[in-house]
Every structure is written in structure tokens, then in C-alpha cells.
């Protein structure tokens, strides 16, 4: 990729990425910006652990600590984990179902830029008077009392990036429903596609409550509404419900695609068809459904009453059943398989016990009566980091190694990959296993410092040392990426040698039209079927013909930029009104200009026909597969 880039000139490449509607390039955009935010969130985590390394530490101030923990959570969930998953979904799902493109290439690009500008807006808070400091849940009673603009950055930034996420979700749903290749029935879709499908459905239904919650918060903080102001008849519990109606499905939005990545990796490197495929699909759908019915388990101590607590406790425990089905299916896929311990497979194997540990503490927390004891302690912190790091982050790291060749056409170094894996795994368990005991010993979460000689000193130090191992692992991974791209050793269609699904049937990286001829899918693991019958590639389902492609567009970038600008106006008009119009006179004009940019670019999009273009079959015949390359 770099050699071609040098030839084309930096500006040309930049413009190409700013205007691209190609899902494979959008995947790279998601990977790079999600990776950037992952580093930012990681640095925030390191600062938190340094502060808590020794008792009574003064490394950061109490206020800054609150900002760090808020931004760590918010960044990691919204700006790192989800975009990184979107990177793999974009890169792989259209290929896995044998599609030339996603259903809405323009909206795909718009979704990315909305996420990107929302993320940038949120992080600009560090430089413009202070970051949000009410926790990633931003409970209304705390956030209404928070001075300055921190919470406003949170509300507006998440509103913008949330819109992008919703768009991305709809795009994946329609792509998977409408764009499957001939023969690719629902029950032949790879598990990563299935889990993307269910996660996208969760996005579709979970993000609107967040949108509403954020609007209510926005109106309360910026336009004088009283939704959460108890003295005016408001009710702060409304925020908690809306947030968790979104927030709990969000956890499944993150974990299900990770399950999908692991399912594909485990069957690939066990050289076996996934055990219990139908049960896996059913479990995925069931987890998605149950994920919506359990949100109040985050609110057991709010005082919902014993009936509500009991209902939500039972529903929560029920999720352990489909999850257990999945765990056993992964184990039985490996059972009797011819296992190769490549880096992705190592992550997959380590994921199973790590995630089970997080699941078990989850069932403990689901018991409403016992939850009064665990609530707001480090036990909870340990639990959700076991689920999110042990599940999602291990899945993302596995996916990075597994899909890197498909996305970039080069293979990450396996030795360095294994070093990353061991450093990360040791660091992860070192950091968080001990936190279960810190919690049970009574250490509350979200505290800035703790006193010496209360039995917390040693365990906190161990936890911090573990965090440094994880940081080291990430540095090794970055080094691996850099040297891999410098060496630039190109790989073929199926670099792992055991690819089972359609993405391994085409060059790495795929040509921009993906499939010269749409493949004919004859069963689950279509490429594997062809391989077993002695063929090297898929049988085409159609004769060579012209391919219709969408045009690049700069409009998504401008549309998102408009909202980004308008958000500043919306935020500073509060100060403008507070100062009786003396200061911040620019705020309302900026709000209007921003909205005009967005609405204007929507109008341009609507008024200007965009029929795309055709690649003629003569060009396709000249284009030999072995070149690969998306340029």
C-alpha cells in the first residue's frame, strides 16, 4: 500500500480517503481512527493506574481524575471498541456474503465521518475548558451539577457520533438482507456475518433511546428544560432508564461481533466446520433479544422494588444459557480438530476461560440481593473489564491479526504477534483478576485515592504493574504493524491456508469491485467445499459482465463537518445568554451556519443525480487477479 501511495502523492491519497465510498477503504479509516482513540483511551487508563499505584498519591488532582475515568470509559466504548468492530465488519462482511459493495455506500461514508467528527468534538473538551467528569454513564444528578462545558461536549459529541452508528447499523442490515450472493442463504452465512446482523439490529433499536436521553440532557443543560430537575417536577431516574435501555444492548453490540470473529477463527484453525452451527445462530439471536430485557440490572440499588429487581435478575441469569451454548460449541469445534496455534487462534483459546470468568461474575452480580454488596465496588470494575477486555478487546486483537492480510495484503509477524499476545494476556489478568478481591475488600470504584495500610496497597500495585504489561503489548503490536508495512511482503488470496469463507477466495486486498463474477455458494463454508473438491477458487454464478459502481463523494465529510461546527454554537450560546449577549455573540451565527452547511449539503445530495458508473467487462478481462491491489 505504501509504495503505491508514494507514487500517487500524499494529497491524492488523502483526497481519495476523504471522498471514498468503498467499504474496504472505510474499513481502513475506521481501523486507523478507532486505533487512535484506543491509544488515547489507553493513555487515560495508564494515568488512572499510575494514580492508584500507591496510596494517597498526588499524581493527578481529584477533578482531573474524574475527567480521566469518564473519558476512558466513553472513549473506549464509543470511539475505540465500536469503530474497530465496524472496521472488521466493513472489511469482511460484504466479502463473506459475496457482495460487490454495501447497500448504501454513501451512507457508509457518512456514518464514518459522523463518528469521526463526534469523537474529535468530544476529545477537544480536553483543550477547551475541561473534559466531562460525570462518568461514562453521566447520571443526570451528577451531570446537571457539573460546571463548565465538559458534559456539553459529552452530549453533543455522542449525539453526532451516535447518528453515525445508527446509519452504519442500518447499512449492514440492508447489506446482509439484500446483497447476498446466489446460494448464500441465511443459514449459510458465516458466524461473523450473523453476529454483525444481530448487532446491527441491536444498534437500530438501542441507539434511539440514547438519542432521546442525550436530547433531554441537551435541552436541560443548554435550553433550560427541566426533565431531570426535581425542583421543577423532573425525575433523574428517567436518564438512568434511557441510558441503560441503550447501555445494556450496547454491551452485546460489542461482544456479539467479537463472538463472530472467534467463531470464524476457531473453525478455521481447527480445520473443522463450526460445531452446532444452527445452535450458534439461535444463541446469537437469543442473546440479542434477551439483551434488551435486562437493562435494569444496572439499577438494582436505585430502589425499583423487589418485583422489578426479581424480574430483571431472572432475565439476566437467563442470558447465561445461550452464552453457555456458545462456549460449549467453541470447545467442541476444537475437540478432535487439527489445531494450529497461530496468533489469532491463541487469542481465541485464551478468550474462552477469560470470558467465562467475566460471565460467572456477571451471574453473581445478577443476583439482586447480593448486588447491594458488590455495587459500585472494584468487583464491578473487574467484572466488566473481564467481559470487555477478555471478550471484545481479545476479539479485536485476534481480528487484527486474522484479517490484516485481507485488509492490507501483508502478514503481521507471527513471532511479534505471539509476544503481543502473551504480554497482553498476562497484563490483563494481572490488572483485573486482583480487582475482584479489592472490590470484595470494600474498595469503591471511581475513587481518586485510597489511604495506606488498609490492605489495599499491594493489590493496587500489582494491578498497575499489569497495566504496564498491556501497554507494552500494544507498543509491540504497533512496532509489528510498522515493520510489516515497511517490509511489504505481499500475500495471496488465502494467506492462512485454511480459509473457509468467501473473503479468502479473492485477492488480498481485494480489487475495488470485490468479485469479478459473483460466486455460486453451495453450502456453509463455501470456499472449503470447493477446496475439498479439488478446486482452488469459487465457481462463478454469472458470466463476466459490466459492474455498476458508486461515485466517490465529498458530501459526507461536509455534512458531518456542518454538525461539528453547529455543536460549538449550540454549546456556547449558553454563555452568550448567561452574559446577556455581551460575550460569545458569535455562538448563534455559528450554530446557524453549521446547520446550513449540513442541510445545504443534504440538499445538494438530493438535487444532484448520482447514478454511479460502470466498469466494462473489457477492463475486467485486462485486470489480472494476481496484481490484487485496491488502487
Amino acid at each position: 500500500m505504501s509504495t503505491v501511495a508514494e507514487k500517487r502523492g500524499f494529497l491524492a491519497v488523502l483526497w481519495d480517503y476523504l471522498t471514498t465510498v468503498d467499504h474496504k477503504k472505510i474499513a481502513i479509516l475506521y481501523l486507523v481512527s478507532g486505533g487512535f482513540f484506543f491509544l488515547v483511551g489507553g493513555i487515560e487508563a495508564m494515568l488512572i493506574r499510575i494514580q492508584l499505584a500507591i496510596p494517597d498519591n498526588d499524581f493527578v488532582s481529584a477533578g482531573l481524575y474524574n475527567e480521566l475515568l469518564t473519558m476512558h470509559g466513553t472513549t473506549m466504548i464509543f470511539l475505540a471498541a465500536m469503530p474497530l468492530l465496524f472496521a472488521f465488519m466493513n472489511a469482511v462482511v460484504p466479502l463473506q456474503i459475496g457482495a460487490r459493495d454495501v447497500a448504501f455506500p454513501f451512507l457508509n461514508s457518512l456514518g464514518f465521518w459522523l463518528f469521526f467528527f463526534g469523537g474529535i468534538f468530544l476529545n477537544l473538551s480536553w483543550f477547551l475548558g475541561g473534559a466531562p467528569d460525570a462518568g461514562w454513564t453521566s447520571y443526570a444528578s451528577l451531570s446537571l451539577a457539573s460546571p463548565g462545558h465538559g458534559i456539553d461536549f459529552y452530549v453533543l459529541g455522542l449525539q453526532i457520533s451516535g447518528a453515525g452508528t445508527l446509519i452504519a447499523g442500518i447499512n449492514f442490515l440492508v447489506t446482509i438482507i439484500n446483497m447476498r450472493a446466489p446460494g448464500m442463504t441465511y443459514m449459510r452465512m458465516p458466524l461473523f456475518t450473523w453476529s454483525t446482523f444481530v448487532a446491527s439490529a441491536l444498534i437500530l433499536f438501542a441507539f434511539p433511546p440514547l438519542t432521546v436521553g442525550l436530547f433531554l440532557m441537551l435541552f436541560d443543560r443548554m435550553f433550560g428544560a427541566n426533565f431531570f430537575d426535581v425542583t421543577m417536577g423532573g425525575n433523574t431516574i428517567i436518564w438512568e432508564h434511557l441510558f441503560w435501555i441503550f447501555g445494556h444492548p450496547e454491551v452485546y453490540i460489542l461482544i456479539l461481533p467479537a463472538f463472530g470473529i472467534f467463531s470464524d477463527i476457531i473453525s478455521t484453525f481447527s480445520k473443522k466446520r463450526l460445531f452446532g452451527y444452527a445452535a450458534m445462530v439461535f444463541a446469537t439471536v437469543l442473546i440479542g433479544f434477551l439483551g434488551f430485557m435486562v437493562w435494569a440490572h444496572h439499577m438494582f440499588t436505585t430502589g425499583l422494588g423487589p418485583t422489578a429487581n426479581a424480574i430483571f435478575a431472572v432475565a439476566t441469569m437467563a442470558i447465561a444459557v445461550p452464552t453457555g451454548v456458545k462456549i460449549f460449541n467453541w470447545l467442541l469445534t476444537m475437540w478432535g480438530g487439527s489445531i494450529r496455534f497461530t496468533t489469532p487462534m491463541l487469542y481465541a483459546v485464551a478468550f474462552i476461560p477469560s470470558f467465562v470468568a467475566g460471565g460467572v461474575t456477571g451471574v453473581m452480580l445478577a443476583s439482586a440481593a447480593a448486588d447491594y454488596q458488590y455495587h459500585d465496588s472494584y468487583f464491578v470494575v473487574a467484572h466488566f473489564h473481564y467481559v470487555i477486555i477478555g471478550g471484545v478487546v481479545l476479539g479485536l486483537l485476534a481480528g487484527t491479526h486474522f484479517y490484516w492480510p485481507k485488509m492490507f495484503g501483508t502478514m503481521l509477524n507471527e513471532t511479534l504477534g505471539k509476544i503481543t499476545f502473551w504480554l497482553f494476556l498476562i497484563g490483563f489478568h494481572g490488572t483485573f483478576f486482583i480487582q475482584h478481591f479489592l472490590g470484595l475488600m470494600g474498595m469503591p470504584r471511581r475513587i481518586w485515592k485510597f489511604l495506606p495500610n488498609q490492605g489495599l496497597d499491594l493489590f493496587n500495585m500489582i494491578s498497575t504493574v499489569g497495566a504496564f504489561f498491556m501497554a507494552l503489548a500494544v507498543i509491540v503490536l504497533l512496532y509489528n504493524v510498522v515493520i510489516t508495512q515497511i517490509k511489504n511482503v505481499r500475500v495471496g488470496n488465502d494467506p492462512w491456508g485454511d480459509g473457509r469463507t468467501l473473503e479468502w477466495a479473492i485477492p488480498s486486498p481485494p480489487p475495488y469491485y470485490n468479485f469479478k463474477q459473483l460466486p455460486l455458494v453451495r453450502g456453509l463454508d463455501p470456499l472449503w467445499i470447493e477446496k475439498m473438491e479439488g478446486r482452488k477458487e469459487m465457481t462463478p454464478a454469472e458470466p463476466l459482465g459490466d459492474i455498476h459502481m458508486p461515485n466517490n463523494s465529498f458530501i459526507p465529510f461536509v455534512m458531518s463537518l456542518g454538525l461539528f461546527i453547529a455543536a460549538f454554537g449550540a454549546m456556547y450560546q449558553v454563555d452568550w445568554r448567561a452574559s446577556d449577549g455581551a460575550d460569545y455573540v458569535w455562538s448563534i451565527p455559528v450554530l446557524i451556519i453549521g446547520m446550513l452547511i449540513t442541510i445545504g449539503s443534504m440538499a445538494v445530495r438530493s438535487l444532484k443525480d448520482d447514478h454511479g458508473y460502470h466498469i466494462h467487462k473489457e477492463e475486467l478481462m485486462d485486470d489480472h487477479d494476481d496484481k490484487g491491489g485496491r488502487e
Partner: protein
Amino acid sequence: MAHESTSANPKVNYEYRRRKARDEMRGQVTSFAMMIFMTFIAFIIVIADFDKFYAFPVLLVLAGAQVVLQLYYFMHMSHKGHGTAALFLYSGALIAFVTILTFLTIVWW
């Protein structure tokens, strides 16, 4: 560009389609009349000042019936090829129901 309805005799096909569309339009006008009628009843119930334990369920049933007419006749959900749309709309409606139920029962201070 394949046409969906290719009969051997395009003229017959065309006239058949026109007639079908007209019949459907008649059904839509009927459902509009029913919606207006139901709206009248709903307003009359409120004007007549019934007790709310009788009024609320009737009002909600009338609203539900109107929405079904709107979805199935005006938005053509009765046509073929709306299975996925219906699945997602009903999933949304289920979550909507649970959300509203929650806010009516366990948000109380």
C-alpha cells in the same frame, strides 16, 4: 431491466393491473372512512366523560386499530415482500412497549 409482470399479452396484463390498483384504492378509501369513524368515536368517548377505567382501554384499542389500517393499507404492509419490514417494525414495537411499561410502573418519584 426486467419487468416484474411479464404476461404473454401485455395489454391483458396492463388492464389486470389497472383493475387491481383500482380495487386496492377502493379498499384504501374504505379504511380511511373507518379511521375517520374511529376518530369520531374516540372524541365522543372523551366528550361523554366516561370513567377513565372504561375510556382508556377503548381509546387505546381504537388507536391500535387505526394504526393497523394505516400500516397494512396505507403503507401496503398487506402486500407481499414485507416480511422483513414487519419483523423489524414489530421488534421495535415490542421494545417500545417494554419501555413505556417501565416508565409507567417503576419511575415513580
